[in-house]
């Protein structure tokens, strides 16, 4: 009897502990976070850590590597192809982002006006964003083809040039060509996001500025730009990050050629790691991108810090 009573008491105690745990905010909170943490660890933290680790080893496909410290980075520092890819990546990012911003802002301002068939034009602007990257890359590849390029054909028919342009055979031609393809693909994102930002600006601000005597240019300078600056910071950060890590366009159009002149860090990393089999070296190249990306994020973080006029008070 005594034993039975004891076990019942113990059972009651256990169940009450279980129930109490589920009534505790802290325990429940932790439980709810488990799935999110698991996903983050599995798909984000683990690959990142693995990448860091691989960069410190001489792993090759098919064989376990061993720890070699910073040797990969040391050899990369002497590798002219690596430095060329760093230059290409920076050039590609700066040139493409600047033009994407300019065209995107222009389109956004245009679409914010009263236009006939506005919704249709908006849909057309979004088109490059909707087409799968590889598909549009193949289209560009064809447009840039040395024998069948439609651009060359049109220019020859128009009598402006006499020979087909070697878009992808000459280093600088190739660089500008892939930049153009990236711009074509990236403009819709910038334009639509900036348009959304423009539409949050109250029309009465423009009316007030109009009565205050502002010209069109002054309205843009004193109302549109400052009001849009938070959105610009977000859009351009995303745009820079996406351009810096671009892979698909380059890999489909040029594969990094000619003579590595369009190799970005991402494509070079892939080439060395997967095609070349040197996983360790490839991972080191990928790791080398991190300082640049962190710098871009920090820049935008400080740029994004809400200006004083956005703080405080309710509205």
């Amino acid at each position, binding site marked *: 009897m005594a034993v039975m009573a004891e076990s019942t008491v113990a059972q009651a105690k256990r169940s009450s502990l279980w129930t109490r745990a589920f009534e505790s905010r802290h325990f429940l909170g932790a439980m709810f976070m488990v799935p999110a943490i698991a996903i983050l660890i599995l798909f984000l933290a683990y690959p990142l850590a693995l990448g860091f680790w691989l960069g410190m080893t001489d792993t090759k496909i098919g064989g376990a590597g061993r720890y070699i410290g910073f040797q990969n980075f040391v050899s990369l520092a002497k590798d002219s192809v690596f430095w060329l890819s760093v230059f290409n990546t920076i050039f590609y990012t700066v040139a493409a982002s600047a033009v994407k911003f300019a065209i995107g802002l222009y389109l956004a301002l245009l679409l914010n006006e009263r236009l006939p068939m506005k919704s249709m034009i908006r849909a057309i602007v979004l088109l490059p964003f909707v087409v799968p990257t590889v598909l549009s890359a193949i289209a560009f590849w064809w447009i840039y083809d040395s024998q069948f390029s439609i651009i060359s054909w049109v220019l020859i028919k128009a009598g402006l040039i006499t020979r087909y342009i070697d878009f992808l055979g000459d280093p600088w031609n190739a660089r500008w060509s892939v930049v153009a393809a990236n711009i074509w693909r990236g403009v819709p994102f910038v334009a639509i996001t900036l348009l959304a930002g423009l539409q949050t600006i109250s029309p009465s601000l423009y*009316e007030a500025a109009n009565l205050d005597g502002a010209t069109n240019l002054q309205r843009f300078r004193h109302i549109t730009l400052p009001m849009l600056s938070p959105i610009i910071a977000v859009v351009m950060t995303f745009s820079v990050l996406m351009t810096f890590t671009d892979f698909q366009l380059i890999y489909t159009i040029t594969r990094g050629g000619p003579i590595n002149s369009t190799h970005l860090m991402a494509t070079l990393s892939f080439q060395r790691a997967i095609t070349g089999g040197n996983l360790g070296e490839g991972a080191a190249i990928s790791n080398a991108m991190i300082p640049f990306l962190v710098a871009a994020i920090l820049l935008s973080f400080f740029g994004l810090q809400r200006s004083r006029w956005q703080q405080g*008070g309710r509205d």
Partner: protein
Amino acid sequence: MSSVQIRDVRKSFGNFEVLHGVSIPIEDGQFVVLVGPSGCGKSTLLRMLAGLENITSGTISIGDRVVNNVQPKERDIAMVFQNYALYPHMTVGENMGFSMKLRGESTEEINKRVKRAAEILALSPLLERYPRQLSGGQRQRVAMGRAIVRDPQVFLFDEPLSNLDAKLRVAMRTEIKELHQRLKTTTVYVTHDQIEAMTMADKIVVMHDGIVEQMGTPLELYDKPENQFVAGFIGSPSMNFLKGHVRVNGVATFEGPNGVKLPLRNAPAASDGRPVVYGVRPEHFTIADDGADAEIVVVEPTGSETQVFAKLGGEQVVAVFRERHQFNPGDKVKLKPDPSVIHLFDEATGKRV
């Protein structure tokens, strides 16, 4: 400062005409209030005056100059918007000085004028703040400050108090009126609130469905409304209307619904049996032995006065008494309108008889 002439102005959006020939003369230094229910075209008219909407036909002149085709910024007007339209990224001082900065005035002159306007509006301690950090009333004052700094020919106000709470609205009303008395700048003020119109205006323009129903001083409109719309719109609680006929039988009386008889001072000539609407303001009822029978429905004391809803000949009427009668719902009372201040309107046209 300058006068404003609005002559036969029409406005259409596509085929839909919203203003049907409006003419309003505004004298130099006058405070004119455009009042009417929403959709009556008063805000559109103000925006046409500002140059934010095109004028379909007719002319608007400021001073001697017809401004139909003059750009807003060249009309020398300042406008206070309903949502204030303050530039959120500029401080109070920058907001107020923006128009002068655009005109390329010296920083010294801008600071001087901004400082003076800030003093007038008690904004001096707030000049470095951003609009987000201000209360509704302060934002409202900044919007006015922006207008004052410009020292324009005409001030335009587009429902400036409708975003404020009731208490602040009353305070700002007085402040705006005081400001006008001080600056004496011609002002056109749009509101849907007839109390704002009554308390602030030199001249009220009552608009309805794109036409001017009546214009005049607040008391003219109150005492002699030209039609039933104005009579019902001006005054709070609004005027009671009873349908019936004029009876001339020795003494002129009004015979209302269910045979209720109400006094008339003198009947309009040859009007026996004429169908009319009898209008009496709530404050013009008294309790008298020779009054009409009524039954009290609801009593609403406000302290200074008591509003009484009663059934008079089956129709609900409201009466306001400043004396403290002891009324209870269901009480029978005798209500008598003061015949010297009642209004008669033609039943068909609504025009004053």
